[in-house]
């Protein structure tokens, strides 16, 4: 970590994860828990990116394939695949990601608006771009990802 990260007074804590070759991140305040892949009950007639519902300790939680939600090619499940369960407006929803890498601290001044991404399909769901050790991290607009799926 650079000196700037540590010194920064305002920084955002995010959970970074992989979708294909890219690194995305979700603000840690949304994260309810991160679980291994488990059997998902398919729900006919649900939107195509919805993989179905799971039983999370007695609660029925819908799970989406985040890649296909963002218009990216879906990947085969691997032992590294995880379901990130986020809580938005008091309700839970799971998102399948290829792997969860780490918790990062992003200084606010290192986050740029997603203008340079204009034109790409997932741009709508990105709230900003962060840089950590020369690595580009795409910050996900969780609210949008979830709400639009209604």
């Amino acid at each position, binding site marked *: 970590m650079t000196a700037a990260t540590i010194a920064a007074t305002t920084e955002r804590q995010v959970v970074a994860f992989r979708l294909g070759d890219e690194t995305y991140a979700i603000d840690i305040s949304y994260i309810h828990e991160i679980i291994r892949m488990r059997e998902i009950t398919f729900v006919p007639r649900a939107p195509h990116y919805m993989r179905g519902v799971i039983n999370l300790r007695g609660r029925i939680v*819908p799970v989406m394939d985040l890649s296909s939600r963002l218009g990216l090619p879906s990947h085969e499940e691997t032992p590294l695949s995880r379901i990130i369960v986020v809580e938005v407006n008091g309700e839970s929803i799971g998102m399948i990601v290829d792997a969860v890498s780490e918790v990062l601290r992003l200084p606010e001044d290192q986050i740029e608006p997603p203008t340079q991404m204009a034109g790409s399909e997932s741009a709508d769901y990105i709230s900003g771009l962060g840089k950590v050790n020369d690595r580009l991290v795409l910050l996900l607009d969780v609210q949008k990802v979830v709400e639009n799926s209604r």
Partner: protein
Amino acid sequence: MMDTSEYIALFLEEAAEQINILEQDILLLEQSPSPDILNEIFRAAHTLKGSSRAMGFTAMGELTHAMEDVFDALRKGEISVTTEMVNRLFDALDTLKAMRDQIAEVGSSDIACGALVNSLRDILTRQGAEPQIQHAEKQSPTPTELTLQEHQHEAALTALDSGLKVYRITIRLAEDTLMKSVRVLMVLQAIDAHGGTVLASNPDEDALDEERFDDWFELLVATDKPAEELRNILLQISEIRAVEVTAWQPPISADATVPSAVPEQKPASNAPSMPSEEEKTNTPPASLSSPAETEKAGSRAPVVSQTVRVDVSRLDMLLNLVGELVIDRTRVAQLGREFEARFQHDELVDSLLETAGHIGRITDELQEHIMKARMLPIEHVFNRFPRMVRDLAQRFGKEVRLVMEGQETELDRSVIEIISDPLIHMLRNSVDHGIEPPDERERIGKPRQGTVRLSARHEENYILIEIEDDGKGMDAAHLREVAVRKGVLSREAAERLSDREALNLIFAPGFSTAQQITEVSGRGVGMDIVRSNIQRVGGIVDVDSTPGKGTRFSIRLPLTLAIIRALLVRMAGQVYAIPLSSVLETLKIHPDMVQFVGKRPVILLRGRTLPLVSLYAHFYSGEYADVNANNRQPMFVVVVGLSEQQVGVVVDHLIGEQEIVIKSLSRYLGEVNGFSGATILGDGRVALILEVADLFQNVSARAA
């Protein structure tokens, strides 16, 4: 001044109860006034007047006072019941309701009632009676010795015989106690909650209710608690200054063998008075309420409430917890079976199975009791109907008698909430469209007064509610005609419908047969909403009608919405649950039995054609024929019914019946039709619950 806020909730609840009593009794008053009703109605008005004044709601107090004066004059036979009077009393009652609701919402009421009060006073002056200003009840008789009625004395002796202790408890209230009856109630509840039974009181129960005592009262209580404990329990109630508990001994004197049967003196206002000259002939003189009768009513054994009020949210939470337990019970039982299969009869496995079985039984019982605790008599919905039907009949110039049966039938409060609106709508329909005007009825040889019968009863795991009228009925041919004209379905489709099916057209969206649109029933949005509301809670509504004779609606409802029995089936590797309430039977058929009408697959079942729906084709894609083209295996069919329609659902396997806990699907899943929810199975997996109506939508869409 004391802070009255802690009493508001109690006051509101009590006010709602009294208003309810008033409403029912005023109706009875109109039909057949009797001294009992007059006394009850007077008491209710009196209680309400007292409590609203004590809480500082003067307008409410004034209005009830004016009503009370009318009841008092009626009771004394000074005036008699007229329709006009009943209408005014109902107006006053509606205003009271509005005031109460406003107080519930914003803590005070600014509804004016001056005109109403005057119109009530007007009744008195016009019928020639002086408004009653003095109320003898207001005297506060000083309690005398605790005298026991014979049955009370016996009850005390029986309690002693059975090893309980009987105490005489004297309770002294703080001098500035604002609502004495509230303290009384809290004392009675505290005694009840600790297993005590109140055998007698001084003054009697009515006097306690109406606060006709100074600042102390006495109770005779049977309990198994020591005196000191009882005393401490009661002292915890606020505004109680002192509690004396002494052991009661059966008197050895002559008093004991000849228990005093002398009731407390009733106030002078109950003295008989002469019937006034204006007495109408059809009114039994209220003055017949002889002293003997009032005494009997006044000295009845104190009815100590054996109930505790519980917040609804607490019951909901209990049910949720039991729901979790039901799921885990199923899972534990399944784990037990898996262990048994793997380890045979190991000692530990046997012990696990035994425990699992025990947990299962306890859970069943717990579930049953909590379900029962949530049950309310359907009376809670039915109560408002007599008044409503009366008002409607008056407005439409009809004469209607409402007969209600089975008000005591109990069902889950969640179902009660949902059933109310559909019932209102259907009753309105019966009065508005069903029952003919009196003259027309007379002409065709029916009694002038039409009858609407509303009944509720249990049938197996359902409750059956029927609304039946002896009105003009519905004509299937006419309904077909209207449906075609309104574009609800094509002429060919209409011709194909049986008469029974044609009657069900009234539930179709956009269908209304009313010649003219009335304020009350119908802009054609009614019956389809009624049906969808009922179906949403897993109910079924059906209609049967004979032209000229009348119409009958029947509604079948599940007893509860939270836990149901379901048939589990497998399709495309997943388990689905079908509510057992809709399942008529299951079949195993050979593919050769399937015939095609056009592209629609059907089988012949006992001479009837049964349309088939492949669950796979229904939810995924393709036609039945494509999905089952090369199938040579026997197929499983679940026959489900909805109203008069039936359909056979083709599934891969039948798994069995099970109790399931219904959980809702997240809104984040998107608009997904066809499922009423999901449930968690014994192995922890999720099964979707099919919405049976959805299976039919496809069938009838194809038919039309």
